[in-house]
């Protein structure tokens, strides 16, 4: 009996030792990175070296990890933020948000169904493979191959890719697609190495990315961090930082804490109140950058009394957008007249937002037969509750009784798709192509997924902007569509929010307008 007890005790002790010593070394690479952090961060605000920061490593925090390192088998923002540093796309955007050359140097529509791209010469993948028309064709073919099962949906209209010469390809579409170049900015246009992918199995490729981008892959500890090093031979020149790490911290409040301690250098997408909490922390700066996500309240025009245009207009007059922007977002947002942001192709500045006019709202409601208002339910998500409650306050001020239904964003999106969301819900939408086509895609044409209103004229305007190559004709359709959207008030149109960034005062960086964290443009603060 004694012996048995001894054995049990020994076993327990042994298992505890194993636990404490870390259950096997599955993270050999991380030691080095952490050392870099430790030597890098205490230098913050070193007074002996005024002027340019000596910082060489950059740590970016995100709330979730990449789902794979294969750029064509993902469609999530956090994954793209990481992989855009390892891979290049055919087209990119400059600091003003205009289309700019990347691996393609120029492009034009040679007929209704063909876009021709000239490719950059002398570019090599990190493994030494050449980038050329064959590689570009391989990349696009692989994306479209059903076997790849790519969640990247932008290029579904493409039927084939032809190699014209070593540095020219033609992209053929099924129907005219005016914004193929815009789509090549995103991961539809990501370029992958054919030989490398041919030589390794899918699982290996999904863990060991090889691209042409400014940083080379070093290691990936899942749900913890992705480590990269500078590609000194990058075709634009070597990036300013030698080491780049993306760390996963699921909770924004913890990200802010890690920023204060210097464990991380950069985060985007902060809320105004979190930003205010680090505003005065030493070594941290807040930057508010224009962004393209627009917010609105969808109105279900099939239910009473929202079927009445006057009622919908009344709701638009009822909300004091500017007061909410000033007081809740601390000025980090701008009013919009419809669902298009200013930066997007198709936006027409001549169409102005509904002014705040509660008297007019009450009048319209009374004329429509609702002098005492009505009762309606409203879905809002927990993360946006402050602004939702402010909006409800304004609606109630004109006599509407609102029943708030608080949910999480996944549930709301599910309900939207299933058409079971409340008559009112608050939602944001980002058109990544920076072309109005993306903003209108699911919300404007009356037969689309999230549309709950619309008319024949609006549908035909959407058809024109979706299938016409001529920019002038498209702009005309967009302008008319915005006029209809405003007049018919299918939504309560609200604002486009800024992207609030918090970063170490040793770093200078403004994200690309399309929102991806391309850290090539980040540099030590001057």
């Amino acid at each position, binding site marked *: *009996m004694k012996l*048995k*007890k001894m054995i*049990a005790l020994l076993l327990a002790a042994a*298992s*505890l030792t194993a*636990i*404490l010593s*870390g*259950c096997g070394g*599955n*993270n050999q690479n*991380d*030691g080095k990175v*952490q050392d870099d952090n430790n030597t890098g961060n205490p230098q913050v605000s070193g007074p002996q070296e005024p002027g340019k920061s000596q910082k060489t490593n950059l740590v970016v925090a995100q709330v*979730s990890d990449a*789902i*794979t390192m294969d750029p064509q088998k993902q469609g999530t923002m956090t994954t793209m933020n990481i992989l855009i540093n390892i891979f290049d796309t055919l087209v990119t955007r400059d600091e003003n948000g205009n289309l700019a050359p990347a691996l393609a140097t120029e492009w034009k529509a040679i007929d209704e169904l063909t876009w021709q791209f000239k490719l950059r010469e002398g570019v090599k993948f990190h493994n030494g493979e050449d980038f050329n028309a064959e590689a570009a064709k391989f990349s696009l073919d692989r994306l479209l191959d059903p076997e790849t*099962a790519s*969640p990247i*949906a*932008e290029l*579904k209209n493409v039927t084939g890719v032809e190699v014209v010469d070593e540095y020219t390809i033609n992209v053929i579409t099924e129907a005219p697609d005016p914004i193929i170049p815009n789509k090549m900015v995103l991961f539809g246009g990501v370029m992958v190495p054919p030989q490398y992918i041919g030589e390794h199995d899918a*699982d290996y490729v999904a863990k060991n990315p090889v691209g042409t981008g400014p940083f080379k892959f070093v290691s990936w*500890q*899942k*749900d*913890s*961090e992705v480590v990269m090093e500078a590609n000194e031979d990058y075709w634009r020149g070597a990036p300013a930082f030698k080491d780049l790490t993306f*760390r*996963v*911290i*699921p*909770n924004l*409040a*913890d990200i802010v*804490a*890690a920023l204060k*301690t210097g*464990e991380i250098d950069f985060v985007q997408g902060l809320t105004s109140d979190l930003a205010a909490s680090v505003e005065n922390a030493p070594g941290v700066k807040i930057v508010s950058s224009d962004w393209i996500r627009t917010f609105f309240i969808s109105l279900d025009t099939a239910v009473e009394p929202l079927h009445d245009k006057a009622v919908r207009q009344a709701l638009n007059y009822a909300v004091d957008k500017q007061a909410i922007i000033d007081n809740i977002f601390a000025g980090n947002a701008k009013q919009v007249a419809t669902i298009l942001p200013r930066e997007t192709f198709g936006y027409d500045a001549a169409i102005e937002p509904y002014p705040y006019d509660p008297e007019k709202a009450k009048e319209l409601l009374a004329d429509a037969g609702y002098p005492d208002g009505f009762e309606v339910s409203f879905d809002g998500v927990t993360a946006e509750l402050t602004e939702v409650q402010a909006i409800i306050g304004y609606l109630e001020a004109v006599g509407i009784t609102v029943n708030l239904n608080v949910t*999480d964003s*996944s*549930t709301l*999106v*599910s*309900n*939207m*798709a*299933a058409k079971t969301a409340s008559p009112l819900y608050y939602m944001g939408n*980002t*058109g*990544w*192509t920076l072309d109005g086509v*993306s903003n209108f*895609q*699911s*919300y404007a044409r009356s037969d*689309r*997924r*999230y549309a709950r209103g619309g008319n024949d004229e609006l549908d035909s305007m959407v058809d024109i902007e979706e299938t016409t190559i001529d920019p002038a004709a498209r702009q005309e359709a967009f302008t008319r569509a915005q006029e209809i959207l405003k007049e018919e008030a299918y939504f309560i149109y609200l604002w486009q929010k800024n992207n609030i960034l918090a970063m170490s005062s040793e770093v200078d960086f403004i994200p690309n307008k399309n929102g991806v964290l391309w850290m090539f443009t980040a540099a030590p603060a001057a």
Partner: protein
Amino acid sequence: MAKYIIKRLFYAVFVLFGVATIVFFLTRLTGDPIAIMLPDGATDEQVAELTAALGLDKPLLEQYFIYLSDLLRLNFGESLRYRSPTLGLILERLPATLRLAGTAMLFALLLAVPCGILAALKRGTAADQGIMALVMAGQAMPVFWAGILMIMLFAVQMKWLPTGGYGDGGLRYIILPAIALGLHLMALVTRLLRSSLIEVMGADYIRTAKAKGLRAKLVVAKHALRNSMLPVVTVVGLQMGALLGGSVVTETVFAWPGVGQLLVQAITYRDFPLVQACITMLAAVFVFVNLAVDIIYVFVDPRISYS
């Protein structure tokens, strides 16, 4: 003994079947993964295509039977979001979770046993009251709250420890999450040991031991403690499951790359197969830990036998 174990394993299969079934239907009540996975601009054809590709267009019962027959062959399915086998995703992260739960347990016991003994022996004194006050606080504070407070104090203010993450896997990364996770268990065990020891100390055989002139230390160590440990072993065993459950929250607060974080994300993205696999795995661990505890009883308490 062997017969008993076989019987328990047989029951375990039923428990896991029940868990798998409940999880399957519950997840499907929570929403639609396709709407969450695809970008706002996806067309209806793309929605239909992806739904079919993931097998979510089939009738619910058909999906259920496919799931069950896969499960029987130990195929836990493929994650919708990661598009790779769920088992691999979980196994990659299981060591981090076990390490966190193990360290939390160790922390809890290392602190609870001396505290419990001290409080029992010095019953009613300032030491006892001080310990009990701490214990009450530990038990009353939810993991996430204690975790955030510790991050604020030890990482942000004092800068002694990192705010979170796995880092190089070093000890300084696990200290705060392990304490946060183990706090509740520590409090529970301290109180249990204290009351159990107080009870035993009043028992006749302790009086006898004292009466025969045995030194006080020896009475406690040899006679009282061993007997008062029995309820503690039971509770510690049962609390293993609670530790795994608590790790879901702790891992999210401390950015610890374990199964808990995986599960939280799987729920957020309505990744049905991954939620099912994570929960079934955690349930399996729970069931087998309980079995192990029952077997360990035999060694701890000679009065118990299963033959």
